[in-house]
């Protein structure tokens, strides 16, 4: 095991330890791990399993049930587009196909530059102001095609600045 993965494992254990004795600890642990790494690294699964006295298969089973959990690293930004009815009635179908075309990817895929991962989401609870998208913890309302382009272009610019 190299130094980086040793450090990562230590980090994972510091996340698991204070949570593992909570009743029904698995979801809180998975959230905390994903908040830290942006996804659930495979090393975390066996560590979680042994902390909770479950099998890795059981932990996998739970992760795969929930749309929110990911086992692959995503792009720098996860862009989620609401597919639910209220947004559909305000033009989200057009937005969806525009987004896929602009980014040249389908849902559950990441752009070639690893900047943006596109995902569907079913309702963000902002149904009077759709179409809605979510980027990280920010929800953005009244997103027409032009606004989507503006927002995404800003994400691309900020990536360049960070680099």
């Amino acid at each position: 095991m190299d130094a980086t993965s040793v450090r990562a494992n230590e980090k994972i254990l510091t996340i698991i330890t204070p949570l593992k004795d909570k009743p029904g600890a698995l979801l809180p642990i998975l959230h905390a791990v994903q908040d830290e790494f942006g996804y659930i690294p495979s090393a975390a699964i066996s560590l979680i399993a042994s902390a909770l006295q479950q099998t890795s298969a059981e932990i996998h089973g739970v992760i795969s049930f929930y749309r929110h959990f990911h086992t692959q690293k995503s792009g720098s930004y996860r862009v989620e587009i609401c597919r639910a009815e209220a947004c559909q009635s305000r033009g989200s179908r057009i937005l969806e196909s525009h987004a896929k075309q602009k980014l040249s990817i389908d849902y559950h895929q990441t752009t070639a530059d690893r900047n943006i991962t596109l995902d569907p989401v079913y309702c963000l609870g902002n149904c009077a102001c759709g179409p809605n998208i979510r980027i990280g913890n920010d929800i953005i309302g009244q997103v027409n095609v032009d606004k989507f382009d503006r927002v995404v272009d800003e994400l691309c610019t900020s990536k360049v600045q960070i680099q």
Partner: protein
Amino acid sequence: MTSTIYIPRDTTTLSLDGEQVAANISKNAAESIQDIRLVRNGSRGVFWLEPLVEVATDKGRIAFGPVKPEDIDSLFAADFANACFDTLSAQQHPLYLGLTEEIPYLKKQQRLSFARAGIIDPTDIDDYIAHDGFKGLAKAMQLSNQKIVDEISASGLRGRGGAAFPTGIKWQTVLNCPAQQKYIVCNADEGDSGTFADRLMMEADPLMLIEGMIIAGLAVGANQGYIYLRSEYPQAHIILNEALNNAYARNFLGNNICGSSKAFNLEVRLGAGAYICGEETSLLESLEGKRGLVRSKPPLPAIEGLFGQPTVVNNVLSLAAVAHILADGAKVYADFGVGRSKGTLPFQIAGNVNCGGLVELAFGTTLKDLIDDFAQGTVTGRPMQSIQVGGPLGAYLTPDQWDTPLDYEAFSAIGAVLGHGGIVVFDDSVDLAQQASFSMEFCVEESCGKCTPCRIGSVRGSEVIEKIRRGDNVTDNLILLDDLCETMIDMSLCAMGGMTPIPVQSAMRAYRVQLNDQNLSTPTHAEQHQSKGGV
């Protein structure tokens, strides 16, 4: 003089650049050396006016909206921060709306559960108390368990999550169970498209929910509560946790609530993007750290719920209503509404409307009146064609059905559901067969997979509808679809598979009417069926 300015920090406001509006106001105030106090309240639920900026005056709050970041310079030029009722410059600003209380959208409502929404700082305990908060708890502290449950039963409160089960009966069952450990679980997995009442409650008045949960704990003898919140609500998560911490700091939660030596502990748990976890047994599985597979009933969660213990599972609005019912008495609550639909329901006007938002009214108004009075037409300017009421498992209603009164029984009578009160308006560009297909797709996406009619029926359903849309053997496929829907209704374990046919069949019915209108010579499905002597 210090001016107090209110800018909400709820999801809707933030989704429309609310944070930038607040920042610009602070910046302008600093530059013009004006002393302002910025309060980040919750939204009043008039979402078409968000970001709604309010200024406190001695006659009440004066509102401006919808405010964009670039409007702040002109608002300061009009001296809006010092607006009083008679300041002409502020009144002449195009975003001036007058006294907030007088905005017709708000004035026409009957707000019981949302009386404080948008008025108070949502996490400030003193502000909550100053607006009648914790009165219900104080009352409950003096009552026996049974008396509290009796009060809830007498109010006629029915579960606001969608199933409308009488809350009093549920509580009585849990109270009657002899167990060391019982739980109160708040179902805040508000996944229905077109609904946002739970979110608004949690973001605008979370202490009311917390108060309701403490009362529920006292009533049934539970000392631990969980709020199961969907992960799509990050802002509600932040605000709820702030409110929770403040309630702990003031001993409204903990092991010695209000110095009574009674205990009630509360924790927010995040879901992870599974619609099915809004079904109560799936939610309990998820809280236990498992896949959200639906459980067979019985046993009822009230008898064997979370970790096998007696558990009250109630929706956010049901628990919030409890605080109000205890404070003002069961009778006041029961006096609102009609028949067996007592109290008020916060309707959520969403989708293709100009004036979307939360409208709390007593049961009994017709859908048509609600839309005429509040929605103010479609954003697209086209005529309304179809309204889906009750979320993704609710019916698509055609204009001839809009006269139905909004109460549980009247909706049930036309094969529709009121559910959680979500109302999604579509204009005449809607392709109803496409919507029907989407309902099946949604079921494919969200089925927990435990029972076959839901897991496989939904996949076959969306295939069949796609064939119908392509004009492929339409008559036979329509019959096949009806048959499939019947199987899903009768054989599914929970509402996911059992109710998906409601939007599917209602949308397909309307679609067939549309087709017949376009081509009068096409025989109806029933006629074709007859001429072929059945299939």
